[in-house]
């Protein structure tokens, strides 16, 4: 504890020098992005970080998981967020912490003898490395959050159910149909059947690149579930290669009405619901 206090005292005593050196470091570094951030902003960020760093150092110098370090971590997260918005790369942001090493070494070297110096150096290196890695972790987490949110959005976006006519809904499927998506597709379709009192549901697979046994299984399940709700399903948009694959795989779709195009399926649906589309004699 006493040693740590010594480090804290040293940094506190030479705070101005450390800050000046550190700023110099950051300003001259190759990772400096003058285009993205003003010098004054950098200065205030650096000062705040140094103050909270010293504060935490005085309480618990060894373990950055200690609550004493949470202000430092929070501050870093804030820095991180603002820099991510400004367009900094992860290494550019991590070097914010790493570049503090040299100025701290500098003041420690001036004040301490060789043995103590080595000890303090080890400690401060250790701490700053951990903090630097922490920023990267935060970065990674925020990225993962973005990715999972986008996945969710993509899933919701990619499964629209549209009403074509009274009691006729269509589900244009686009992209690869995996289990998770098939589940959402099924739920959406069934809910839409309830909402629109649909009697016919057209599943258009024009946009599905490949149909294997698993995809066919999902389709069959969806059709069966829709039938249990009292709606007949028509599968349309079957491209020639897919028709060949389905037959080669031995998948039995004979119990389902299949049509080559959405237009054909729609014609059948209209006929089934008793609706008729006629062409007026056009007067040009």
């Amino acid at each position, binding site marked *: 504890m006493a040693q740590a206090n010594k480090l804290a005292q040293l940094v506190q005593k030479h705070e101005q020098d450390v800050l000046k050196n550190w700023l110099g470091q950051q300003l001259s570094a190759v990772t400096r992005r003058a285009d993205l951030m003003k010098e004054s902003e950098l200065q205030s960020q650096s000062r705040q970080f140094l103050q909270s760093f010293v504060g935490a150092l005085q309480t618990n110098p060894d373990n950055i998981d200690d609550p004493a370090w949470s202000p430092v971590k929070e501050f870093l997260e804030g820095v991180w967020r603002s820099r991510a918005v400004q367009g900094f790369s992860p290494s550019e942001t991590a070097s914010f912490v790493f570049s503090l090493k040299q100025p701290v070494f500098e003041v420690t070297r001036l004040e301490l003898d060789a043995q103590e110096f080595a000890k303090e150096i080890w400690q401060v290196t250790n701490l700053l490395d951990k903090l630097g890695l922490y920023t990267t972790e935060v970065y990674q987490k925020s990225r993962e959050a973005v990715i999972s949110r986008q996945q969710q959005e993509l899933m919701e976006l990619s499964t629209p159910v549209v009403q074509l006519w009274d009691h006729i809904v269509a589900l244009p499927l686009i992209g690869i149909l995996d289990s998770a998506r098939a589940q959402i597709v*099924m*739920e959406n379709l*069934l*809910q839409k*059947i*309830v909402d629109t*009192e*649909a*009697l016919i549901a057209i599943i258009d697979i024009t946009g599905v690149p490949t149909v294997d046994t698993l995809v066919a299984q999902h389709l069959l*399940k969806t059709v*069966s*579930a*829709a*039938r*249990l*709700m*009292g*709606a007949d399903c028509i599968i349309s948009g079957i491209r020639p290669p897919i028709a060949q694959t389905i037959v080669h795989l031995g998948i039995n779709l004979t*119990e389902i009405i299949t049509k080559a195009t959405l237009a054909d399926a729609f014609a059948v649906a209209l006929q089934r619901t008793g609706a008729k589309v006629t062409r007026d004699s056009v007067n040009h």
Partner: protein
Amino acid sequence: MERIPILKMGKFLLVTIQVDMHDQLALTLQDDLTNRIVNDHAHGVLIDIASLEIVDSFIGRMIANIVGMARMLDAETVVVGMRPAVAITLVELGMTLSGVRTALNVDNGMAMLNASLQRQGA
């Protein structure tokens, strides 16, 4: 004793299942329904399961059985009002109830029965 009510609506019978089914209740329902079909000369049965939130393979089998029995007695059965979640569960259980006619709600089911009755008459 607990019973599931069977209502007569014109030429059809309406069965609304609102409680959890168990063996005895299902047997009683089968008894009652077959008797009523014969006594009332019903030509159609609507089984409304709109308030059923939980299904298992037992209920699936029971519905299939009732449909089979009604068919023997020349009454067509339509299962109506199945919820999306219930439909998904039944499909996942592998019970697609093929051969059982279904409709979204009682209105549609009634229209379906009327249509098939007219076809038969014609």
